[in-house]
């Protein structure tokens, strides 16, 4: 039997990290050794957290023999910081060639993405300026200053609810002038733009494809995006600043791991606390000498695909049915079983006239649903949401509803769809 080159690369990544990446010296003694299977060796390692990154970037994660000083001086690497509050923040050693390779390889999962990213292309980015680092202290920059080579950064507002008609028109005009092959977007932001353009009759450039990333793609948002971009392939892509591109949706709708640049483990949620095949995403990066991550906890959940092999024919790496949202956005039903954002969103997407929502759980049985409704749908939704949410959380759930004119994003510019207002132990949830 021919050796599995992917397994060999993962084994090499583990052994190389333990041998030559300073941070992992403290993990060496946990390794049961090369005689044991890779999965067992990996599982013996701790989970790497953003707290570890904060404390040890850059030198802790740069392979011995490489000069960080020279890397910075030549521009081969730079420090990039992620947005968010304490738990989400991290500094990352950014190595552009590795990132580009990760993107290219991930794009090969979907023909529409591959067609774009496989060659020269133009790309428009629509997300919070906190995610792209183009928040400018002197105010809004002209298009020319937001265009970097083949990239156009469309947005400089921290909240899409602040976009006025002129902002929407400007972005639509810029898309028309720039004519990107792909729009890489935060779904919440693109949904607002699409809806606003449809409402005002503003023409929207139709790219060859749309890549949704940056945050969890709510079905509500995807629905709005499909309306505004009929016939354009909308592909969900999952990754992070720390890990590169990790999962990409194929044309059959499942998500496949990017085996070229990462290895993924799903750390299972304890039995009785979830509804099956749910796990925390732990990423080991491959082939990045400047920023080697072992079992990095991205903070998100995925549900493993368990049925027949995917229709797209891809078999390497993990295949997941869905990215289920952030761990910290889990809520719990009245029996204490975790409810992921995906599960919640599947239910909420059945509510007619719903534009946005956030569920806040304040006790074992108490839930508040804040929602944004289409014109004329507010009252109906106010009546429809409590029974719908009792279907998710349990018949004994106490559900209150509150209609909002808009929902504000977090400081990072991302929208939180669910949260608990009480503390709970994340680590206790996983095996």
């Amino acid at each position: 039997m021919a050796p599995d080159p992917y397994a060999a690369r993962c084994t090499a990544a583990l052994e190389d990290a333990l041998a030559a990446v300073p941070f992992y010296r403290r993990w060496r003694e946990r390794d049961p050794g090369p005689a044991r299977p890779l999965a067992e060796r990996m599982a013996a390692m701790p989970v790497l957290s953003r707290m570890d990154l904060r404390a040890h970037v850059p030198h802790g994660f740069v392979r011995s023999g490489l000069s960080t000083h020279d890397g910075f001086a030549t521009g081969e690497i730079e420090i990039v910081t992620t947005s968010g509050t304490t738990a989400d923040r991290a500094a990352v050693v950014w190595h552009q060639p590795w990132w580009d390779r990760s993107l290219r390889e991930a794009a090969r999962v979907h023909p529409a993405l591959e067609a774009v990213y496989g060659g020269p292309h133009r790309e428009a980015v629509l997300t919070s300026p906190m995610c792209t680092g183009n928040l400018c202290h002197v105010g809004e920059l002209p298009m020319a200053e937001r265009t970097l080579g083949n990239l156009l950064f469309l947005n400089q507002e921290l909240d899409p609810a602040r976009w006025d008609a002129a902002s929407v028109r400007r972005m639509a005009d810029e898309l028309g002038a720039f004519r990107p092959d792909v729009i890489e977007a935060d779904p919440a932001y693109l949904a607002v733009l699409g809806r606003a353009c449809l409402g005002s009759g503003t023409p929207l450039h139709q790219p060859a494809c749309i890549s949704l990333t940056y945050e969890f793609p709510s079905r509500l948002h995807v629905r709005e995006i499909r309306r505004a971009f009929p016939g354009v392939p909308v592909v969900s892509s999952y990754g992070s600043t720390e890990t590169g591109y990790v999962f990409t949706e194929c044309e059959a709708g499942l998500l496949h791991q990017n085996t070229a640049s990462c290895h993924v483990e799903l750390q299972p949620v304890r039995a009785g606390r979830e509804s099956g095949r749910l796990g925390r995403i732990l990423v080991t990066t491959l082939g990045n000498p400047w920023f080697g991550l072992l079992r990095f906890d991205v903070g998100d959940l995925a549900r493993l695909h368990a049925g027949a092999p995917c229709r797209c024919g891809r078999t390497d790496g993990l295949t997941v049915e869905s990215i289920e949202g952030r761990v910290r956005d889990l809520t719990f039903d009245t029996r204490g079983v975790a409810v992921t954002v995906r599960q919640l969103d599947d239910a909420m997407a059945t509510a007619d006239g719903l534009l946005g929502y956030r569920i806040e759980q304040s006790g074992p049985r108490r839930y508040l649903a804040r929602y944004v409704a289409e014109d004329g749908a507010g009252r109906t939704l106010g009546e429809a949401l409590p029974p719908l949410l009792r279907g998710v959380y349990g018949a004994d759930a106490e559900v209150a509803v509150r209609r909002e004119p808009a929902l504000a994003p977090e400081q990072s510019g991302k929208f939180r769809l669910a949260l608990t207002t009480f503390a709970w132990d994340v680590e206790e949830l996983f095996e």
Partner: protein
Amino acid sequence: MKTAPGPLDPLARSRADFPLLERTIDGRPIVYLDSASTTPKPRCVIDAVVGAYTAHTANVHRGVHVLSEEATEAFEGARAEVASFLNASPAEIVFTRNSTEGVNLVAHGLGFRPGDEVVLTALEHHSNFLPWRVAARAVPVDLDGDGMPRYDEVERLLSARTRLLALAQVSNTTGVVAPVEEWIAAAHARGLPALVDAAQSASHLPIDVRALDCDFLVLSGHKLLGPSGIGVLYGKRERLEALGLYQTGGGMVRRHGDDRFDAHDVPLRFEAGTPNIEGAIGLGAALAYLRGLGMDAVRAHSLALGRHLVEGLREIPGVRVVAGSAPLERRIGLATFSVEAAGLSQESLARLLCDRYQIIASGGYHCAHILHDRLQLAGTVRISTHVFNTHAEIERALEALREIAAW
């Protein structure tokens, strides 16, 4: 590295008074070096604010019941405390939201006419620049290549159109003490009023408005260990009385009839609407606390920390201290600087100080865009101290910067 107080930290006993200093990030205690942005609050201030809510929540100046009388007494007691802190009369103390509102009140009340000019420096915080720019014509003394205003050029800029001189006593970006006495003398020699922005200085230096002879002075409570949303405008009584009304409404009016209304005397004529009662009471407690430590001791500690900080920064290769050539004896415990660290913006560097070293510092432009434009700096990092900081904490920050600069 230890950050425990040493023999050079005479105010170290105050650390226990600040609950915020017990905060940890990633399990390690923070080093708070961002007091120029806002200061942590001592327990006595927190207690004063909570006490106002729990013991005598009531409106001031208008109730006849006991709670209102108690609230009024506490509120006016705070005004007396502020007056005493500045060596002024309570009638000369107007409560505002912050320094910015104090400057705007004066800019609005002076009734500028087209062509009127206000002389200031290009270093001023936006709060002491934009109100003048909007209300009149701002004429700034320019900066030298080090970021220091050419203070001695003030005479050259004064003209028949000049209506006022405005100057920060301590710059929020350089931490250098400005020659306010000379500017005030230059203004008075021409019969002009002078406004002192004491937003930064009031927390580090003893201030005597009689000795300074300034006409107006503004400060912010939150930079003085007090609550946010409360500030002070000091004005000589005759200067305040000559100002036009800033806001009208309840509380500032003595009588309102069909054909006219009569405003109260100063300071109440400038305090329309229900004031920030709890904020004022908290500010009073903060000033009492500082005076308990002794403002001379506060100044000495601030200068010592500033000297330690700037001397340390100067020795780090690749660090450029803004106004680094200014004499050490004229600096409070504040320094703004850039670090030549490839791959890192100054803002990223400030974030790194927090995320990796738990050091809370500012990164960005510090409301001084013109300064950064002049010095062609794409942002800077600012470290600023207060009474609770220790030399060990300064050393910890310097050690972190040495490490980053050597990357």
